[in-house]
């Protein structure tokens, strides 16, 4: 069977690389998370020379305030706020560009531009913009932004709203977003949204353009206004695209590291700390390897819960095509 041999040869490099460097590493991490390897000591071979203590690290992890509730809370708020903002902005921009306005291609390019930048560059730019001494407050000072800001914040009827936003750490009207624990998470969300909403726009635009012209025409003949066509005909057609968008953005949120690490280092305090940063610092600064490994495993499990059902449905629909 020459074909079979050839197939194996063609697939071997990719398969071996992923088996060793991903699945073996995951298995290793899981093993390490069951040991008491929370101190510096040279490895014996490639496995930690520490006794297995079962799930104790996971117990410690969930008894650590920094992780539970803090990191989990931050990840949840970040994920929800990031998805809502990106989907809202992306959908609005997609509908705008769907109007066949002049310069559509140029605008689409510009909206997609941030996506090509690295999270590192995005984080650097936005850290600067949100710096209380250099950034947005100063830039918009001539427009009286600070008066508006303080006015809104002290406007009594809105106080419950600010309290909620303060609690969620996304009160972006505060001064110096990255240095105020009540606002810092909002700063990170804005930077992430800036980077990814163009991508959401492009996904939705592709979805809108995929709806047949006849369908729109039929609605128009029935006397529907443009707005009704969007609300009742086009947007419902975007459901599958929306699912893809939410899963991809959700996955980005769960593994977010570079953006937060560079913008705030998880601070001020632990106001923007997320599991990947906690894991990184536990392992490479505090030498709490086993604890770090347990964070990694929790992250992997949560990612899998989000992504696996989606992957199966993708593969099923592909099989049917």
């Amino acid at each position, binding site marked *: 069977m020459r074909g079979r041999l050839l197939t194996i040869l063609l697939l071997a490099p990719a398969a071996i690389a992923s088996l060793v460097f991903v699945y073996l590493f995951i298995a290793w991490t899981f093993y390490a998370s069951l040991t008491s390897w929370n101190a510096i000591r040279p490895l014996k071979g490639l496995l930690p020379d520490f006794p297995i203590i079962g799930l104790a690290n996971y117990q410690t992890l969930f008894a650590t305030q920094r992780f539970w509730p803090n990191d989990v809370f931050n990840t949840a708020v970040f994920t929800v706020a990031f998805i809502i903002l990106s989907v809202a902005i992306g959908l609005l921009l997609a509908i705008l560009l769907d109007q066949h306005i002049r310069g559509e291609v140029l605008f689409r390019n510009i909206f997609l*531009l941030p996506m*090509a930048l690295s999270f590192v560059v995005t984080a650097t730019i936005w850290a*600067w913009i949100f710096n209380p001494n*250099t950034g947005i407050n*100063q830039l918009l000072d001539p427009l009286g932004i600070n008066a508006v800001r303080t006015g809104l914040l002290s406007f009594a009827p809105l106080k419950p709203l600010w309290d909620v936003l303060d609690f969620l750490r996304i009160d972006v009207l505060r001064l110096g977003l990255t240095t105020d624990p009540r606002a810092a998470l909002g700063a990170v969300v804005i930077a992430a949204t800036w980077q990814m909403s163009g991508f959401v726009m492009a996904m939705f635009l592709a979805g809108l353009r995929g709806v047949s012209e006849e369908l729109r*025409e039929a609605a128009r003949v029935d006397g529907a206004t443009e707005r009704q066509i969007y609300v009742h005909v086009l947007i419902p057609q975007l459901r599958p695209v929306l699912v893809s968008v939410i899963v991809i953005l959700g996955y980005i949120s769960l593994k977010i590291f570079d953006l937060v690490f560079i913008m705030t280092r998880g601070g001020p305090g632990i106001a923007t700390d997320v599991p990947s940063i906690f894991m990184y610092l536990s392992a490479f600064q505090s030498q709490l390897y086993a604890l770090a490994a347990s964070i990694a495993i929790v992250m992997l499990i949560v*990612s899998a819960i989000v992504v696996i059902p989606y992957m199966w449905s993708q593969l099923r629909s592909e099989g049917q095509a």
Partner: protein
Amino acid sequence: MNSAGSVSPTPPGPAMQRPVTRSRTSLWASILGVAIGLVFFLFPIYWMLVTSVKPPSEWLTNPPVFIPDRLYLQNYTDALFNWGGLKGLEDSGIVAVSATAIGMVLGTLAAYALARFRVGGTNLSFFILSLLFMPPVAIGIPMFLFWSALGLVDTYIALVVQYLTFTLPFVVWVMKGFFEDLPVDREESALVNGASRLRAFWDVVLPNARPALVATGLLAFIFNWNEFSIAVLLSRGRVTTLPFILPTMMESHYVLWGDIAAMAAVGALPVVIIAFLLQRYLVRGLSFGAIRSE
């Protein structure tokens, strides 16, 4: 599903004209929306570029300088020579080009095998797709220990191999989708005429796949060029890619915003050019093929 169409080299024709009856208010709403969008997306980039050409005295002035009266290019020479930007360009280039090139060759072959011989079925596809959704930080500890056991932390080979573990499944996934949509008749007639599998692949399939290969390769290059999480785990100061250097510049006592902006611009320029060249493919690639038509 017309995904083959989505990777054709020619841009789609002008969008189908349809009579649009638009009220004056909705026209103004559109213009306002686009204007706000442009400011939101462009201002941060504009600010990075303009800061990169300002002299130190103008970095932090109040009110800020929006249009500098002259170009101060010393930020760029500082970034390139004092901050190691030149070395960063070299290291980023070596790592990203190697990982992309190796990933493209191995990944395209594997994708072709998967698409044509239907080995493994859904399980293998699932396996590959699962690699794409792997948070890199989550395997950071064994990654670091593995390479330090080999004495290869802070080397090109460690970074290239680690980048490959993400580049390979990406290439396999996108190219597999492409090959599956490619009609098989011409390949089969070549096979009937006595060509070997590899010959048919080389002579018939690859020429047709060129646009898809270019798009996938450039996207993989962007990912590798921008990668940070693995670089920060495996770099100790000898192999320093640009994303690794940039955050270290913010740790100094007096933050040199002009130098930082210049370094960010140097790092962003190659990928921005690429993104403009292939924005049509960007979305399909970045959605891991979730969006298959344009």
